[in-house]
């Protein structure tokens, strides 16, 4: 099997986030900002909860149904935005979109090395929406605030 291409997509770190997602779960309280978003073309779903302190993301949790790429990306996104301000989180999302378009981006700005592993998704056009779902959900929830 020609796994050369595949290995650029399914990097070890992605599979690690897929199998051991960070920040997975739900908050018990009722005052978190929440959003449920799906990818209507494939049925992937994400349920995202944010706890803000002023304009800083104090804590974030997610649950979801989806492929390895969408769930790994969600896991990484929650790690990346925790402790960041809303505007920093939004800037990161834009950076992520640029990365999916194959643009050269400064990986250091994510402050999370793991995200680089998702760069390979840009070579699989059919899978880009999987990777961006959690980020779009995050944008939607913080913009509503």
């Amino acid at each position, binding site marked *: 099997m*020609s796994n050369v*291409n595949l290995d650029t*997509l*399914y990097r070890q770190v992605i599979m690690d986030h897929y199998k051991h997602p960070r920040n997975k779960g739900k908050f018990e309280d009722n005052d978190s900002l929440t959003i449920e978003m799906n990818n209507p073309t494939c*049925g992937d779903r994400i349920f995202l909860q944010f706890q803000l302190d002023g304009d800083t993301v104090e804590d974030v949790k997610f649950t979801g149904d*989806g*492929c390895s790429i969408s769930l790994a990306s969600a896991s990484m996104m929650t790690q990346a935005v925790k402790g960041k301000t809303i505007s920093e989180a939004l800037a990161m999302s834009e950076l992520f979109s640029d990365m999916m378009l194959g643009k050269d981006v400064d990986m250091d700005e994510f402050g999370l090395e793991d995200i680089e592993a998702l760069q390979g998704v840009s070579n699989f056009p059919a*899978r880009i929406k*999987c990777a961006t779902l959690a980020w779009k959900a995050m944008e939607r929830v913080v913009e509503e605030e």
Partner: protein
Amino acid sequence: MDIQSVREAFPILNQDVNGHPLVYLDSSATSQKPVAVIEAIDEYYRLHNSNVHRGVHTLGSRATDLYEGAREKVRHFINANSTKEIIFNRGTTTAINIVAQSYGLANVKAGDEIVITQMEHHSNIIPWQQVAKRTGATLKYIPLQPDGSVNLEDARATITSNTKIVAIAHVSNVLGTVNPVKEITKIAHENNAVILIDGAQAVPHMKVDVQDINCDFYAFSGHKMLAPTGIGALYGKEALLKEMEPVEFGGEMIDFVELHDSTWKELPWKFEGGTPIIAGAVGLGAAIDFLTEIGMDKIYQYEKKLVKYALEQMRTIDEITIFGPEERAGLVTFNLEGVHSHDLSTVLDTEGIAIRAGHHCAQPLMKWLGVTSTARASMYLYNNEDDIDRLVAGLKKTKEYFGDV
């Protein structure tokens, strides 16, 4: 059926994808096109292109003859009584919407019922949801058996004297279930309801006789039966179509136009507003010729054998779950334990194998199956056992790959 010469008629199959010979197992989404269809469209544009039903010139007559000739081919193919009963349109979705908006809104009232099943494609759910919402009618579902089939007792219990419309798939695009449409038509008629059959997954693969079924409406798409995208047909009984109002108004469909009122052309043209899909119809005609030459019964038997082989081979993989009844049309919907269908589809794609992953435009059915997505391998007359062997090898490798990483 000489499978080798059939395959040679489809140039697209003769290519490598991601370094491997293409295995195309996504014909339920759309079929590939034989040279005969591609050439018929090419020839139409090179030699005959013109608008229909108006030009006095020679090309206009030729285009009209070709367009109306295609209608006669469709009539003969599904054994309609008259070409007045064959309305060309964009495909199954458009056809169902015509019936929903024209017949549905005019005949369904508050308190009435519309009956469908839980295995329907979104295109045979949403138009009826809309009719129910606008009229105050109730949308009811015939429940499914555990294996994904419909039984007639359930149909009898769900369809009542309040039912005005029954709409059901002939063949499920997810489960491959072949529904007993003739019997369900009888039940609908005993309750004075009309019945529409979504034949998108049936007409390409089996002999369909609308007079034998005795259904009131039958909808299907060209692109799933070797014809180009953007052409399809609605069959309707003449007496019903005659009473129905058009849903699109404009050129081509009028008789007399005055300042404040107009009258419509006769059937079928009153439902074909605007310049029609002429080249598409020509392509559909060529596709019907191609299928007829091979024979629909032969195609059905061939696919039945192939899907049986596929089921046997796929079941050699322990981690596989296959959905749908044993007796089925040529498709297999499944999941591989521990691997999401998108990941599965991506891995197969790197092996040159094209399958569908996702909800297959049937979210209520996914819910019934208790899954959010599935993978589907769907076959047509150009697939062979090698394709199935490649699929099974690909599935085994996928399992290994995701086991390792």
